[in-house]
């Protein structure tokens, strides 16, 4: 499991730029990033190298945020990689609320961040299928 930071963003020009500027000024590196949007606001979801530093500086700069556990899995960067992961979750009856992908400098490897509705069942199913889960330390060292 890894820690994900979700940040509330008002739907107006520059809101996202303002947040990323705070991250840049504090030398924070984004490992993965996704943006969910409703008509008048958005939620930025961040995976970073330093969760504590990131949440502290964002709060100091007036952002509202929440930190939650999500699953990170590693899989071969080849056709069928994601299908295999999702099928194994489907077979276990796990629903995925959202998902986003990222890669690293490791050739041939892709990573997925996913938020299952049932964390422990999802983890068990992934383990049973031999799908490797990435932990926080590994992400921080990438």
């Amino acid at each position, binding site marked *: 499991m890894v820690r994900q930071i979700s940040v509330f963003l008002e739907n107006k020009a520059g809101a996202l730029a303002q947040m990323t500027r705070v991250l840049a000024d504090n030398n924070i590196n984004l490992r993965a990033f996704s943006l969910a949007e*409703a008509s008048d606001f958005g939620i930025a979801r961040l995976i970073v190298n330093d969760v504590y530093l990131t949440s502290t500086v964002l709060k100091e700069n007036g952002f*509202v945020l*929440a930190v939650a556990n999500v699953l990170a899995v590693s899989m071969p960067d080849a056709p069928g990689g994601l299908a295999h992961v999702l099928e194994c979750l489907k077979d276990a009856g796990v629903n995925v609320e959202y998902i986003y992908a990222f890669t690293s400098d490791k050739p041939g490897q892709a990573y997925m961040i996913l938020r299952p509705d049932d964390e422990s069942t999802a983890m068990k199913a992934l383990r049973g299928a031999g799908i490797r889960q990435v932990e926080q330390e590994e992400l921080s060292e990438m």
Partner: protein
Amino acid sequence: MERYYQPEIETAPREEMIRLQTERLIKQVKHVWDDVPYYRKKMEDKGVSPEDIKTLDDLKKLPFLSKADLREAYPYGLMGAPLKDCVRIQSTSGTTGKRVVAFYTKEDVDLWEDCCARAITAAGGTNEDVCQVAYGYGLFTGGPGLNGGSHKVGCLTIPTSSGNTERQIMFIRDLSATILCCTPSYAAYLGETMKEMGLGPDDIPLKAGIFGAEAWSEEMRRDIQATLGIKAYDIYGLTELSGPGVAFECSAQAGMHINEDHFIAEIIDPVTEEVLPEGQQGELVFTALTKRAFPLIRYRTRDICVLSREKCPCGRTHVKMSKPRGRSDDMLIIRGVNVFPSQIETVLLNQGYPANYQIIVDRVNHTDTLDVQVEMTPEMFTDNMGEIAARQKLLVEGLRSMLGLTAKVTLVAPKSIVRSEGKAVRVIDKRKI
């Protein structure tokens, strides 16, 4: 044990009060007839002379005064005393047009400060208290009025005036302030700042707050009482009549006692100008009985409220007014529906939103739009988009059932709505009509 500043007046039997008010009314009408040509002309136009005023019931024969009269008569037209007898002016914020300038003789100031002293005493203040006055000092009546009242009670008075929130908190802590006087929105902001500094209600010695000069709801009172760990008392007043202290809350925290020895209150229908029977909602009208330099008769306040003569557990006999349910100036007419910002505030606070909001009214394709902007808070935020949207929908439904019309709800970034140190700007009306 309830304390009174002037017990013989504050708990006087009704018959005694009627006798006093009648005597003062007759005298005051003679005074304006003799000394305020502007009002004398109004009386003449209506065919009334001082001889027609013999009982309190005769009050309704007299013409009204409104803000428009004050503007027309600006600056000296409504004065009832020569300038050499005046020692002070105070002035309104001028947010709704031209400033109103009110004059005071030495005795006018003295009686006004008595009214404020009654309010501070009703909130539990004694000469052992430390009273921090964070209302603005200057032309605004809030600071000078409560400052004078605090002196009369004998409190150690800290005249911080408004602004510089961290210094306010420092004084409250370092000098053990027990009573805070300011606008309710500033009290809420102070609480918010304390939270940010990691301070809770147990970290400050405050026990009471006297908050007025703008509309606030019961929910906002609960909020402020919890974050500051105090009892929050409402106070009412208008520069035109003196300032804060025209009416004030007692320990019952249910309506404000009007200082009837100085002011007669009436409730009228704002459209027909008929006096309404007791207990009915309408516009509050005041007659100042003791003011000499600026003696307003039947002044229309534009505040909508209800009067009650129900027996109060505090022992005071003066009539109580409800919190103004809106100001006919603040009242918005949106798609033909009367909307008061206080109604919107009630819904927000009931659903756990912060008291900081802004109402934006506009007209798009000939239809009025109402956008209620609320700040996102850490308590409300969740990673789950659906939950946030569901809360937003709940708020839209709450507003619909309160107002009878559909409003849009926009969630905005924290601290993006400007904080005020005086009166909060709640409504932005962009309609060009």
